[in-house]
């Protein structure tokens, strides 16, 4: 089987995000990058499927900057066979990224039997790429997947919907699977895995190579700024005997007049 995994590189959850100098994007120079956590479930599921289906290959694809290739290296160290990097700025919109991923997958000379991705990226939370890629490749997609089984070309997928209800999809043929937490426990990249990853093929393509141009941009960022700082909370002293009644009246008054919640 030809298994593909689309991964995104996102800022580490502990990174302090700041707008860049002219407010056109976030400042990326000081960011520590990690693989999007939902994509780890995607890589793990791809590796589990590979282990179950002899002769399979796992190809990871990413669109983004070339300075730091953390996400691809992690995927290779976990056990993926090869990687494709479409070199691009980090500020592409979902449509451009999807088109680039589609182009890269088509350019690989392997027809995709299954494509995995995370259900969303934790940086911009757009939740669009898996659906867009599937649409562009004319294949079905199932998102928020928490259960995966595959046998004889048929894929059974469990999808989590509101209220914890589970929908079950049976799909035959190629499918795009957007993975959610709970699907599996992603493995560590072992040290021998890290050493081996260096020797695995990493193909580098440009946006032009995969048929994406500036005209494909659908979303233009008008500006980035930090949310206004929260004003400090108010503290009321009510320890003294008899003070409570007055404080309660004051708090209720403020909730009405200032916070306007009652």
């Amino acid at each position, binding site marked *: 089987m030809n298994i593909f995994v689309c991964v995104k590189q996102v800022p580490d959850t502990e990174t302090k995000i700041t707008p860049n100098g002219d407010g056109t994007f976030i400042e990326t120079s000081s960011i520590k990058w990690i693989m999007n956590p939902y994509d780890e479930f995607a890589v793990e599921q791809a590796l589990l499927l590979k282990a179950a289906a002899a002769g399979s290959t796992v190809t990871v694809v990413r669109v983004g900057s070339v300075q730091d290739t953390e996400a691809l*290296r992690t995927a290779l*160290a976990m056990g993926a066979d090869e990687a494709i990097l479409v070199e691009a700025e980090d500020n592409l919109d979902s449509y451009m990224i999807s088109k680039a991923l589609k182009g890269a997958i088509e350019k690989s000379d392997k027809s995709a039997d299954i494509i995995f991705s995370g259900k969303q990226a934790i940086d911009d939370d757009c939740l669009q790429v898996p659906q867009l890629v599937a649409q562009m490749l004319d294949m079905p997609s199932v998102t928020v997947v928490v259960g995966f089984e595959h046998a004889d070309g048929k894929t059974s997928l469990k999808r989590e919907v509101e209220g914890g209800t589970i929908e079950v999809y049976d799909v035959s043929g190629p499918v795009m699977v957007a993975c959610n937490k709970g699907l599996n426990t992603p493995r*560590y*990249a*072992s*040290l*021998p*895995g*890290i*050493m081996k990853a*260096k020797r695995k093929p990493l193909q580098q393509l440009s946006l032009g190579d995969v048929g994406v141009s500036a005209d494909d941009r659908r979303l233009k960022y008008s500006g980035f700024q930090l949310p206004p700082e929260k004003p400090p909370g108010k503290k009321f002293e009510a320890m003294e005997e008899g003070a409570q009644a007055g404080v309660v009246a004051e708090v209720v008054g403020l909730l009405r007049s200032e916070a306007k919640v009652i």
Partner: protein
Amino acid sequence: MINFELNQEQKEIHEMAMKFARQDMIPNSAEYDQKSEMPMQILEKAWSLGLVNTCIPTSFGGTGFSTMDSMIITEALAYGCLGMNTAIMANDLAILPIVIGGSEEQKERFLKPFTESYKIAAFCLTEPSNGSDAAGIKTTIKDAGDHWVINGQKMWITNAGYADLFTLYGTMDPALKHKGICAVVIEKGAEGIEIGAPEKKMGHCCSDTRSVTFKDVKIPKENMLGKPGDGWKIAMKTLDHSRPMVASSAVGGAQCALDYALAYAKERVQFGKPISGHQSIQFMLAEMAMKVESSRLLVQKSAWLIDCGQSNTKLASMAKAYASDAFMQVATDAVQIYGGYGYSKEYPVEKLMRDAKLIQIYEGTSQIQRLVIAKEILA
């Protein structure tokens, strides 16, 4: 050209080992410390990820890490738990003499199994009456024709209760001093090995420490590393490798204590502001950070010297003495910054302070390191 940056692969190794420390070691360290129990599942997982026996060359199935790589791993594992790291590091200490002094046949026979499943090794040098004066060991190795016979007692042996293999130093004749010392490998189950009860220790509680008595233990001739009398040389070379490693564990522990202290100081409010806003605390934190940074630099230089094929005896002792003393001070100050909470077992820094003490003692006390340094600089 001097370069203080880790290479890409080393950064990945560091990240992976720190992930293991944070996810698998730290959440369990207090529990195993209090139970004084070897965390076998965690150790096996560490082995399966390639974090154990980092000194085994690739030709015998190992990962083939440089000494610098091993330091990075040790620092991260010690950050997770000093006790678990001791159990892991003791394996390296015990198999290093084989890597250094063993023949190809011995490496194949003894090292290979360690790469095939999680096996445990114990390094047997110290005796009840010989610690710092290592050349005065009394355990005897006698030639009995077609085999060797071992008699003697070893003390404070890490991993003893679980060991599949013991690397033992003994003497052909105590009168020969250094020249009579030999290194041999003894496999588990040899008749005459008596394993003592676990020692009750101040720190590193989840690591296994016992005495081991050898009574007329017979081992094959081909289990001696090098020639009779090569033992001292092998032991000294082992220490050149293992001292930076122990020093690196001190850096990991100290970094952990510093990180806890920093986080707590920013949280704890006294006199209307976080205590990190008080200059007295800032001075302590700055001092701690200087000690961690300088310790790490010494460790890395001592490891770099080995990787360049140069002698590192002086730097290894400097790293070991400096980093372990620094760790003790940093851990003590972390407890101080936590105040009353720091003294409580509910908070993580008291364990670090207990664990720090041992690093000043094992693998050559801080005083012995100073003797080594003095000998080197006066030579």
